[in-house]
């Protein structure tokens, strides 16, 4: 009695097919909507009626721009053995592993890490509850070396919230959200510590320099990266202080840009890496740090909730961790799946609203908020892992996406993927008899190593939990599935559920949805957007082209505003996008406040027109998180 659903091509058991039907119909509608929009508007709107927003050279190439005639465009180039893009857990673990191997085998190896943040850890944001498995393998004596894992988990609580009540749900041992043996960490500080370990081993760290361009050999393999140019004015013209970025060439380049990296986006197209996997799905995580009343502080307590204020069909939930780092500090935050359908939903305001729940307010009352930030995270899991290696390069960490969604942990898998990439790259680079077909090394052994590792087993076991939410009962259907199938079968069920398609295709038109009435922030527990953004310490050189580039400047007003009531003004956690009235009086225009950007990547993911392309701004710009 096994049926095969004709639309979503999955083998379903009878009672699940009822839930699937709605999803299939939604998928069909999404496909239809995707094809309608672009053609209708590009012929009717000319760019002369729309104020110019985008000036970046990735949209308006400089070789055709008269202002750039005669400018010196030569770049200084340097050679390394391995270049790593991104100084986060994956990138630094890879760097450390490479140097450990080099020292062990007495080989010289030049490893360079480029990182867009001004200091290592400044763009890192996570809950975070760290499973120390990968760290134990990488640096077994981490405790003696002073790794900032100061808060072992002592209490683990899970609940379903309603508007007024909190219904505790027991966490049975064996369920993925069991946290025994894990540590609550300030990931930014952990990443900073990893950076120090890397430097001690001789890794060259270059924070403040963003990788802006992938370089290719003549044979199409990856040659390395080029860092960002500096000194380009807001209008796209060169300033007096203009200088070209630098080229870093390597035998192999590891791309660890984190969730939805902009270079990875390019590489997916270039090497067709996503042809055999599902599109990645995402969530946005917003986080704050609070210093609370000492009487309410329970160091080591881990609290998660689902339910209110989200409805059962919007995936998401909260976390609240009591840290043990001297002062009574709690890290709390809210995650909203970016496959939500109502364009009036504002993840930021849901977060602020959630804090007013009686059970949360009791912890926060009398406390002080000291930090704020946001970042997109992966939810696709096993089904969305792309091809990971291509000639000259490899993808590591949250960039391809190894997050264990029900556990809400991705740091340990990111670190392990970096370590495996390092090990396979090291063998290839130091192999004296190597005959490489391409100038940049192709290392398929990385994928094989991953498939044999615990990452693969772990992600395979939980692959069906997130997609199980795509049913009529939403949250409750998903919890039921997890309780029945995961707890008994641990992911051994023979089917693999599919995701719903691209997150950007999920929004319903505004006219079909009800606006959400959010309460005004009270300034003590909940806050307004701009004061929150100020706390992130984010800043960018203002006289540079906006790095949130639009392929077509007319699309925001013509499509996003017209059909979806401008969802970007609500999903951006930093207030970058604003629809303001035109100076002439009639109509609106999109204003991009690029300086506010916290590099979360949500706009690139959720834009229903997929018109926004986030590119990296001048290095050192972005948030100044301290231990987030």
């Amino acid at each position: 009695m096994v049926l095969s659903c004709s639309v979503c091509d999955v083998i379903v058991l009878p009672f699940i097919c009822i839930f699937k039907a709605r999803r299939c119909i939604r998928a069909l509608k999404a496909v239809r909507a995707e094809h309608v929009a672009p053609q209708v508007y590009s012929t009717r709107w000319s760019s002369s009626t729309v104020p110019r927003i985008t000036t970046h050279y990735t949209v308006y190439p400089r070789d055709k721009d008269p202002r750039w005639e005669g400018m010196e465009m030569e770049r200084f180039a340097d050679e390394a053995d391995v270049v790593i893009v991104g100084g986060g857990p994956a990138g630094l673990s890879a760097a450390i592993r490479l140097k450990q191997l080099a020292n062990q085998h007495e080989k010289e190896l030049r490893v360079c890490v480029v990182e867009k943040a001004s200091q290592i850890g400044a763009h890192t944001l996570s809950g975070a509850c760290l499973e120390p498995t990968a760290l134990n393998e990488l640096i077994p004596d981490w405790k003696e070396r002073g790794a900032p894992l100061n808060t072992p988990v002592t209490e683990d609580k899970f609940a379903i919230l309603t508007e007024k009540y909190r219904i505790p749900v027991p966490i049975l041992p064996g369920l993925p959200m069991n946290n025994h043996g894990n540590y609550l960490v300030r990931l930014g500080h952990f990443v900073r510590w990893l950076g120090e370990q890397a430097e001690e081993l001789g890794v060259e760290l270059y924070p403040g320099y963003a990788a802006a361009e992938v370089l290719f050999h003549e044979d199409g393999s990856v040659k390395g990266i080029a860092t960002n140019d500096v000194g380009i004015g807001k209008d796209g013209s060169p300033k007096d202080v203009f200088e070209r970025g630098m080229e870093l060439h390597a035998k192999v380049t590891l791309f660890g840009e984190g969730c939805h990296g902009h270079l990875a986006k390019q590489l997916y197209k270039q090497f067709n890496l996503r042809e055999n996997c599902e599109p990645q799905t995402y969530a946005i995580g917003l986080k704050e740090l609070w210093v609370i009343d000492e009487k309410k502080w329970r160091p080591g307590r881990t609290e998660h909730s689902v339910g209110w204020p989200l409805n059962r069909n919007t995936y998401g939930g909260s976390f609240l961790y009591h840290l043990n780092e001297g002062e009574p500090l709690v890290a709390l935050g809210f995650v909203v799946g970016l496959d939500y359908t109502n364009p009036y939903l504002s993840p930021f305001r849901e977060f602020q609203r959630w804090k007013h729940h009686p059970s949360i307010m009791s912890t926060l009352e009398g406390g002080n908020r000291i930090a704020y930030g946001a970042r997109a995270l992966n939810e696709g899991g096993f089904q969305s892992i792309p091809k990971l290696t291509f000639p000259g390069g490899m993808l590591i960490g949250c960039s391809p996406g190894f997050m264990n969604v029900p556990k809400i942990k991705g740091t340990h898998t990111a670190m392990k993927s970096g370590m495996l990439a390092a090990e396979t790259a090291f063998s290839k680079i130091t192999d004296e008899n190597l005959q490489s077909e391409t100038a940049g090394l192709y290392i398929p052994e990385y994928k094989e190593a991953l498939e044999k590792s615990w990452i693969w087993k772990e992600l395979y076991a939980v692959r069906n939990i997130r997609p199980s939410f795509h049913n009529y009962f939403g949250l409750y259907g998903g919890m039921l599935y997890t309780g029945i199938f995961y707890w008994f079968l641990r992911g051994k069920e023979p089917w693999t559920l599919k995701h719903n398609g691209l997150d950007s295709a999920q929004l319903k038109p505004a006219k079909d949805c009800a606006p959400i009435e959010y309460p005004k922030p009270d300034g003590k527990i909940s806050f307004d957007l701009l004061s929150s953004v100020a706390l992130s310490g984010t800043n960018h050189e203002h006289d540079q082209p906006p790095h949130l580039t639009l392929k077509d400047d007319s699309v925001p007003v013509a499509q996003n505003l017209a059909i979806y009531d401008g969802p970007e003004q609500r999903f951006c956690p930093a207030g970058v996008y604003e629809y303001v009235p035109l100076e002439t009086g009639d109509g609106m225009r999109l204003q991009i406040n690029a300086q506010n950007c916290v590099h979360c990547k949500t706009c690139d993911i959720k834009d229903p027109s997929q018109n926004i392309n986030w590119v990296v701004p001048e290095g050192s710009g972005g948030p100044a998180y301290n231990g987030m």
Partner: protein
Amino acid sequence: MSARVLVGVKRVIDYAVKIRVKPDRTGVVTDGVKHSMNPFCEIAVEEAVKLKEKKLVKEVVAVSCGPQQVQETIRTALAMGADRGIHVEVSGKDYETLGPLQVSKILAALAKKEQADLIILGKQAIDDDCNQTGQMTAALLDWPQGTFASEVNIEADKLKVVREIDGGLETIKINLPAVVTADLRLNTPRYATLPNIMKAKKKKIANVKPADLGVDVSSRLEVLKVDEPPQRQAGVKVETVHDLVGKLKEAGRI
């Protein structure tokens, strides 16, 4: 010209970061907070490097006082074009109480030791806003000073400085050696690009202790407490001028 320029650079909390007072009210939280070179010091370094490029000076030496981390700031100055650096090691309690008087004593001692002909500093630091170090250094050395400079030119043996003052601009001519403090409009600092950062790793940074220079860094000031500024209260709207006058009288303002 065989002139040597000494440039002072200070590592301060980045201007875009929200400051937080420490729970014990003795100062502000600095651990892990983003720091960068004081913007006015960047302008000072740029001016010195410009003078070197015009071949008016021979060598630019960047100096910073503080713990190990200030070496990053000196490296940035080296990447912008300074030739070598001097790190004056001051850490712990001494660093927390380090102020303009001690720094100016250190700079004066270094200027004599290095036989500097010109000292360029930022007009003030954005963390303490003292605006004293340049002036004190000039006084200790008994050198002329051109502060709040928005334009600096070397003419023969003298320095022509255009200063930004309350009433407008003042142009003075001072003898060398001199102390100049940089104001905002002096120049636009160049970026420290990656190839230059890599080259800067090879440039020398000498380590010196204040005691070696004969300077006592103990402070004569004691910080009693540090508080956040009072929360901005909401305003009150009134309907008529009469009401306004009434409210002002109530508040004891008139």
